[in-house]
Every structure is written in structure tokens, then in C-alpha cells.
């Protein structure tokens, strides 16, 4: 009898474990009825809840596009705010399906942490922000400064490298979130706040007196930021990757949220037809409906529209396209052909 109970328990537990492992990410998302997206804990312009508690921003917009591609509903997505420290564990454990949270693509994260970076949605670099009254005009003058730094980020490592290479010393003040870093910086507990230039601009826009702060001209690192998924589910990685490429290609080909329905009825450019699903059956190859990309573009607009609406120069964040212009405009955005 004892043995039966033992075997019974063992068999039952194995069965449960087996079922849990068999489903692919897309099947899990479909069964759940919504996408779970790992987001920033609050970075104005990139990912933060607005006054009504609705998540808004550049990275958030990408998740909405993905939800629209899968469910034809840009609101079928819930956002899990993650700190720099918790984001990878949350992704690896399956707590979130995709991470769209200003995450830098690096070798160790891609290879050793077993993550898959599907592309770059924002080409960034690390910079320094100082109060104007400090009278500093270059990062080379920061010897001996106290620097606020978010722990668990690539910026933490770049900072150590930059000061080391230039033979300068500094006093790190490690903080957990961007909000805490801003609070410490504004209180004067540190002289310098360092993170990606885009995030510095976003922080500065939220300050009471944005003009009292200066972002130093030095950009000390390459920070390609992009959406991340778990290693091992290639179909899911393809869906996330080509949704990003669809938004980028849409801008290049002139597909906008305004004209997407019109172009669906007929376009003389065959690639537009293949993206919008009137030709080629690309959606089915991904395991989605054929008009997946059209739905994503209709929901949030193409890359340029999303950029302009959330972080562009008409917004308080006021970022120029710079490296993030299309390759035809001298930038780095380059979607592979839809063919």
C-alpha cells in the first residue's frame, strides 16, 4: 500500500510538471487571452501609467502593437513593472512573455543569461546629467564626483570603465529605481545622474525646472535597447521580432495608422501587400492571422508615428530621431525585407 501511494504521488507530480512544460509561449498567451509585458517601473515617455492609470509610452506602445497583432486588441495586454534587478528573473521564470523595458543588448545577457534579443527599437548611449550651477561642461571634469547609478544595469559597468580609463575617481550612490535616482539627484545627494541619454531626457522633462539641468555632451557607451524574450521558443521570438520589423518597415514604405485600411484594399507596391496580409500569407507562417501587421500598425501607428507621439521633439521628452532615423535618412533603422 505504501508503495502505491508513493508511486501515485510521484506519477501525479510528474504529470503536472509535464503539462506545464509542453505549451509554447504563443499557446500560453492565447489561452490566457492577454499578453503579459514586462515594463519599466515608471519612465515618462517610455513606459509609465498616465493620470488614469493607463500605461503609455514608447516601449508600452510596442507591447500594444504586439497585443493587437495577436488578439486584434491593443488593450489585451497587462503590464508588470520591473526594476533593473528583477527584470531578467521575471522573464526567465515565465512571469512575463516579453520584456520591453529599455534593456541593453549585450553578449552576456544574450548568451549566458539565455535571453533572445529580437532587435533594437532604440539606439541609445550612456550620458551624464548635472545641475547647471555646478559649472561642469564635460564629463572629463567629474573627478571626485558623487554619482547616482541604478544597480544591475549596464550603465553601472560602463561608469566603472569610463572613470577607470580616464584615471578619475568617483563615489557611487547605488539606487534601485529611476524614481529614487531622480529624488537623490534633486536632493543634491549626488552631483551627477548617469543613465542612457534617452532616460536622462525623460527624467529631465519630469523635473520642475528642466532648464536648470544639463546633459553633458559625452556619450560613453553604445546602448542598443530592444524587446527581449526567453531563449528556446523560436516561433515566439519570430512573432516579437517581425512585429518590430513591421513597424519599422511600415514607416519606410509610408504605411501609417491613417492609411493602413486604405492600403489594405490595394497598393501597387507588392511588399506593402505582403506586410498587410493581402498577399503571401505571412501571418499564417507565424501562427497568427494574415492581417497581424496591419492590426499592429492600425493600433499604434508605424515606428515614426509611435516615436513622435511618445518621445519625439514635439513631446516634453523632446528626443531627436538621430541614430533612430530610417537607414534611408542616415539612421540605423533597417528592417529586413518582407519576402
Amino acid at each position, binding site marked *: 500500500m505504501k508503495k502505491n501511494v508513493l508511486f501515485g504521488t510521484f506519477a501525479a507530480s510528474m504529470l503536472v510538471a509535464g503539462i506545464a512544460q509542453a505549451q509554447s509561449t504563443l499557446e500560453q498567451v492565447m489561452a490566457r487571452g492577454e499578453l503579459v509585458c514586462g515594463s519599466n517601473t515608471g519612465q515618462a515617455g517610455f513606459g509609465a501609467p498616465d493620470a488614469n492609470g493607463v500605461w503609455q509610452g514608447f516601449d508600452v506602445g510596442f507591447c500594444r502593437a504586439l497585443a493587437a497583432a495577436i488578439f486584434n486588441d491593443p488593450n489585451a495586454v497587462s503590464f508588470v513593472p520591473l526594476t533593473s534587478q528583477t527584470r531578467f528573473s521575471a522573464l526567465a521564470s515565465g512571469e512575463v512573455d516579453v520584456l520591453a523595458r529599455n534593456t541593453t543588448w549585450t553578449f552576456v545577457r544574450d548568451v*549566458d543569461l539565455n535571453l533572445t534579443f529580437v532587435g533594437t527599437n532604440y539606439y541609445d548611449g550612456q550620458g551624464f546629467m548635472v545641475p547647471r550651477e555646478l559649472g561642469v561642461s564635460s564629463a572629463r571634469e567629474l573627478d571626485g564626483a558623487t554619482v547616482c547609478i541604478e544597480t544591475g544595469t549596464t550603465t553601472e559597468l560602463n561608469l566603472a570603465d569610463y572613470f577607470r580609463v580616464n584615471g578619475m575617481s568617483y563615489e*557611487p550612490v547605488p539606487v534601485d529605481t529611476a524614481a529614487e535616482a531622480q529624488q537623490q539627484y534633486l536632493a543634491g545627494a549626488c552631483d551627477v545622474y548617469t543613465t542612457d541619454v534617452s532616460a536622462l531626457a525623460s527624467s529631465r522633462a519630469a523635473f520642475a525646472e528642466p532648464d536648470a539641468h544639463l546633459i553633458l555632451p559625452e556619450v560613453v557607451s553604445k546602448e542598443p535597447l530592444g524587446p527581449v524574450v526567453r531563449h528556446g521558443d523560436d516561433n515566439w521570438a519570430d512573432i516579437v521580432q517581425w512585429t518590430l520589423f513591421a513597424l519599422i518597415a511600415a514607416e519606410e514604405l509610408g504605411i501609417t495608422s491613417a492609411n493602413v485600411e486604405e492600403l489594405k484594399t490595394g497598393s501597387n507596391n507588392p511588399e506593402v501587400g505582403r506586410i498587410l496580409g493581402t498577399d503571401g500569407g505571412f501571418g499564417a507562417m507565424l501562427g497568427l492571422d494574415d492581417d497581424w501587421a496591419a492590426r499592429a500598425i492600425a493600433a499604434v501607428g508605424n515606428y515614426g508615428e509611435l516615436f513622435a507621439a511618445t518621445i519625439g521633439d514635439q513631446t516634453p521628452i523632446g528626443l531627436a530621431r538621430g541614430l533612430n532615423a530610417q537607414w534611408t535618412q542616415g539612421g540605423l533603422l533597417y528592417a529586413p525585407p518582407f519576402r
Partner: protein
Amino acid sequence: MWPRTRLGQPTGYIMSITNDQRVATAAPQKPAFHPSMLLYDQRYRSITIQIFALFLLMLGAAWLIDNVVNNLRLLGRTFSFNFLWQSAGYDINQRPIEYDSTMTHGRAALVGFLNTIILAILGCALATVIGVIAGVLRLSKNWLVSRLVTFYVEIFRNIPTLIWILIFGAVMAESMPAPSAFRGDNASSSMIFDAIAVTNRGIYIPSIQFQTELGVLPIGPFAPSLNWILILAVIIAGIFANKQLIAHANRLQSETGIRPKTWWKSILLLLLPVGVILVALGAYLDYPELRGFNFTGGLHLRNSFLAMWLGLSLYTGAFIAEIVRGGILAVSKGQTEAAFALGLQPGKTMRLVILPQAMRVIVPPLISQYLNLTKNTSLGLAVGYMDLRSTLGGITINQTGRELEGMLLLMAVYLVISLTISGLMNVYNSRVKLKER
């Protein structure tokens, strides 16, 4: 020692009767063992249940381990501690031993470990001082004093320690002047006694430096300065000599009834050798000085450290105050009255009669408070204190992705620290507990 005899001996007594019976009676009378007896016979049932429970426990553990191994394999991950020998790449602000970003993750973890230990020791010390004073004062007959202390105890132990730590951190960062306020001819802030600077980045105090460096003692990864080891040795020798002096005075007093004056000899024994050695090594005070962005020189007590130290000490001190109060109240009132009847002053009554007896009630719960404080040091990340949790359990895990290995190592280290404290305190407890003769 009566509980053991009362519980143990009768059992043995019954056992011996049954044994005797078995020996005395003939074998055929003993019923043959049948498997159903495992469930229905009281003698075997408890053993069956225990074995079954043990099986379930082991099965549960095996399932968990199997799950971990399988999932790691599915994720294509290996289990390895090699990351400890890779270069860390990040900087740590509070470094008790030499460290820079090119050193290994293991070295960074060691720095974090030392920061944890420093905070735990200083925290336990301050919490004990606060706790004992508050505990005694809460029993004061002075209405104002006892109510003030009650207010302290209630407000600190009823608000979570993390909140206190954050409050202290915020107060330091928000309300103190920035170093730039100390600059210029008409500076808005000035240093206390020209020696201590209280800024929003922490407190800078003078530190002791030596003109003659005796070098360092290399013990594995540590390199303590020989100067400090020498000074520590002289201080310990002084305390030991002072103990001998007091013991001699006590002996003389019990033999002749006259106690020789010892206070000036004590002061001489405790202070003179240290003074001599400090002068011989050319000790001087290094004052903090505003240079560039920050103060340099002296000793920098960072905001994160101060917030943790004060938060943990005041929080735990409130609990210790209650433990001390309970311990004192546990000593019968007759002891105080007897001491007063002998003409002892209240202070001496407390020090010589009440507290020694209260100690045996105080020490066991005090151990758990020390353990709590030590484990609560792992909240350091909240204010950016670079303890073991923030270095090994935070940045290292995040940069290398070795959650499982890092967490296991973290658990092992905290377990060892806690068991060590508990062991040391138990030794102390066995010294102060009621001696039965």
C-alpha cells in the same frame, strides 16, 4: 535537574518491567507479528506514521531538486560557481578591504560580507545600549521619563524597520546641506568644531592616521594594518591588567576590610600604554577637507550606512528595552528591598543585585533580537548600503544571471553568521544563567 528524572526514569522503569516480563514469560505467549499491526497496534502505529511522513518529505525534496535540475537543463543552464572568479566590473563605495572594479565577483561578495558584519556588530552594540537604557528608564518613577520612553518603544516597534530605514535615509539626503554649502567665504554651513561635516552625503569625521606604518599582516584575502593590531593588543593587555588589579583589591578588601584606592591605577593601566604607543607611531588626526565636489580625508559615514545603523538600532533597541524591562520585573521585589535594607544606593542595587539576576531572563530573547538585527541588515539595498545582499545577492546575480547559485551561497552565509552569533550568545548565556549547585 528534576525534570529529567521525572520524565526519564519512570519510562525506563516501565521498560525494564516489560523486558523482565518478556524474559520471564514463555515465548509462545508473544503474538506473532502481522503486517496489519503496523496500523492497528499502538506500539507500531506511530513508527509507521513517522516513516511514512519521512518518505513524503524526502519525496518532496527529491521532486524539488529534480524539478530544478530538469528546468535548468531545459533552459540550457549549468550549475556552476565559476562566476565568483570572473571580474566583477562594478564599484563599491564602502570598502573595508582593498577592492576595485577589475577584481572578482568573489572579492566583491567578500566586501559585501564585511559590510554586513560591520553593520551587524555596530547595530547590535548600539541597540543594546539603547535598549538597556530605555528598558531601565521605562521603570523610572519619574512620570515624564517613563512616558517618553514608552512613546519611543511603542512608536519604534510598531512601525516596520524598513520604513524607519527609509525615513532616516530620506532625512539625511533631503534636509542636510550639500557639500557646496560649505564652500566660499560666506558659506551657509560650517563644520562642527572645524572637524565634523554633516552633509546630505553622510557625515565626515576625523580619522586617526599614523606617520609610521608598520605594514600589513597578510591573512588570505585580508590585510589588516599591523598598527591597529598592535593598538588592539595593548588595549586588551590593559584591560586584562586592570582586571588583575581589581581582583587584587577585592582580595585585600575581603582579608582586611579596607579597599585600596584603585581608580587612578586603573586609568593609568588603561590609558597610558595606548597613549605611549600612539605617540610612538606618530598618530595624528586626519580632518575632512572640502576638495572638488566632496569632502576628502577623514572617515566618511555614508547616508546608507547611517540610515541602516540608526534604523536597525532604534527599531531593535525598542524590543530590547521591553526584554530588559521584563527581565528586571522578573526579579522579585524582595531583592530590591533587601539591597536597600543593606544600605545600597539605587544605582548600585540595579548594577550589583538586579541586573545580574535579570540577565538570565534577558539573554535568551536577546539572542533572537541580535539574530533579527543581523538578518535585517539584508534590507541594505533599500538605501543602497552595499552589504552581502546588495553585492552578491544583487548586482552580481544581476550581471551574471546566476540566481540559484547566488541565492544558495547567500543562504549559506547568513546561516553561518546566525549560527555563529547564536553559538557565542549561548556560551554567554551558560555563564550568566542560574548556577545550580
